[in-house]
């Protein structure tokens, strides 16, 4: 079973994301801050990471960079999910190694597309 790591600090978003991804038949792991995200990713080596940018402690960009720096985790596709919609934010996400960027608010079809694309 493919593993998806969701890094998100909003519990209501976690609720619907987790439910949707589980229903689609994937294993979901959720962490609410950047430090935990890096730790868990190195531990379980997920097949896809959905990564928020604004997080307590370490932000999404730093998480992305940290994962790309490690050989074990650098191949994992990272898709940013964020309310930030300005060009420079999106550019930064791609620059640090993100493969895609989904702007909040998104709906489940957009998530479905991402799952189809990277898994």
């Amino acid at each position, binding site marked *: 079973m493919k593993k998806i790591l969701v890094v998100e600090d*909003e519990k*209501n*978003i976690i*609720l*619907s*994301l987790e*439910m*949707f991804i589980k*229903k689609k038949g994937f294993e979901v792991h959720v962490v609410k801050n950047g430090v935990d995200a890096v730790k868990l990713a190195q531990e379980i080596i997920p097949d896809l990471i959905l990564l928020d940018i604004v997080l307590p402690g370490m932000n999404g960009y730093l998480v992305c960079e940290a994962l790309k720096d490690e050989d074990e985790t650098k191949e994992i596709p990272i898709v940013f999910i964020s*309310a*930030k*919609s*300005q*060009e420079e934010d999106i550019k930064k996400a791609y620059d640090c190694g993100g493969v895609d960027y989904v*702007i*909040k*608010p*998104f*709906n*489940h*079809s957009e*998530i479905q597309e991402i799952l189809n694309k990277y898994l």
Partner: protein
Amino acid sequence: MKNRSVKFKILSVLILIFILLSANSIWSIINFNRLSDSIENIMQSNYRSIEAAQSMTVAIERQDSAELAQMFSDKDTTSNSFRENEVEFLRNLSRAEDNITEEGEEEILKRINSLYIDYVDKYSVLVEIQNSEGSNAAKEYYYNEILPLFEETKEETRKLLALNQQGMITRKDRAHDISTSATFSTMLISLLTIIIGVVLSIYLTKKIVKPIRNLIDKIKKIAEGDYKQQLDISGNDEIARLAKEFNTMTQKLRSYELLNIKKLMEEKQKADAIVESISDGIIVTNDEHKLLLVNRAAEKAFNIREREALNKHFLEVINREDIFKIIEKTKDKKPTDEYKKYLDISLSVEDKTEHYRLNIRPITTKEGENIGVVTLMQNITKLKEVDQIKSDFVSTVSHEFRTPLTSIIMGVGLLLDEVPGPINEEQKELVEAIEEDSERLKKLVSDLLDLSRMESGKIKMDIERNNIRDILNNAVKPFKRQLEEKDVDLEIKIRDNLSNVKADFNKISWVFTNLIGNALRYLPDEKEGKIIIDAKETANKMLVSVADNGKGISEEYQQKIFEKFIQAKDNDNKGGTGLGLAISKEIINAHGGEIWVNSKIGEGSTFYFTLNLG
């Protein structure tokens, strides 16, 4: 002549010339008379004496003949002839005696007289000798006594003749002299008259013309606005009176002018005070871009002094090419022309950054002539600050909306897909309503964010040369199905060979999308919808129009619809966010274009926007 009138002066000169002419005439008459007397004199003095002398010669010769005849023929006839000629001789002698004119003439006549008496006496002796002693004795007596006497008498009469002839020549010469001197003297007097006449005329003309010239010069100066001119008044003639009136007139003009100037100064000071007190900056430049006015607010904004800046070129005082460029372009614009009238600038004033909106307009006279440019500086620092706060607020709020919206949209989506489990029809209906409105909320948030970014200039325009037709085709694509469903006729009139425009492809495409979406949203239900899109080239702009036959927009909303959150009232909510036109306006303005609408209720609306040609 100094105190006399011009009339008197002219008359005096004319009379003087007339007197001279009269003198000349009198002199000529005198000379004529002298000449005539001289000729008469010749007649009287000599001609008669000459005639008498000749007659005496004839008479005595005849007497001599009579004496010769006496000695050879009849006594009586010869004696008669002698006596007759004696009378003739004496008559002429007395005529000559009455007309003694020449020196020595009297002596000659006295001698003739005594000789002739002797001659006549000797004739009587001859007659007696003839009668008594016969012809031979008579002949002897004649040759010895009478003939020498006859010759002598004749000689004297010849002398008389010669004397008088000589006198005649003398008198003729004198007459000639008189006529010559008369000619010269008359010529002299005439010349004198002419010279005096000319001199007097010149003097008089100068006398009259000089003050008139003076007057003309002064009047010219007055015409140029110098009312201080005064004429020197001397004398009492007409010109002096004119000068006096002239001086009175200039004094009145001057006091009138001073009064006017005073009034004008007061008005100007009032106007100046008003202009100075206006809190917005005002800069006025003339048609050569020289500064005519800089009020206090403008002085402060640019840190310049009006006194030092006046009459200098704009750029010499204010080193802002961007402002000057607009002023230069504005100079020749008509009030109806479309052009960029505003410029927002930031200036550092007393260590603070102040923002100004410059409103630059031509100064046009009533006759339609442009005489300069007025630049109004509206301080929009406060507005900008408020706007920034508002933008930040809107940006923050809409950003903060996104997270809760994500869970709502996700949750609703999952419910409708029955991921957690099946739902009944009523539940489904409710959830669908939630989905629709959350999508609207999503669009609103996204539009708000776009707009606030656009307003703060955070969104950069990617302006390239583009074909307007290509942009439109891109914008129309997503509407294909909607147009077919609603049975709306979309007509694109844009020609293929139009020039390119300078445009950000995606942003202008967005504007088209928005305008077409609006048109579709407000199309009438009762008649067939029609949308016409056209583009025309003007001098340096592309004018694009999107026309519909919808319900139209009332006049009060035609300006407002380009503001945020304004939707024309009296229509049901058709699902717009009220931000589309505001964003369109921001996009078009960022392209240096304008956007506006013409509309009539019930007939439809036409939206226009302009883009620069590429």
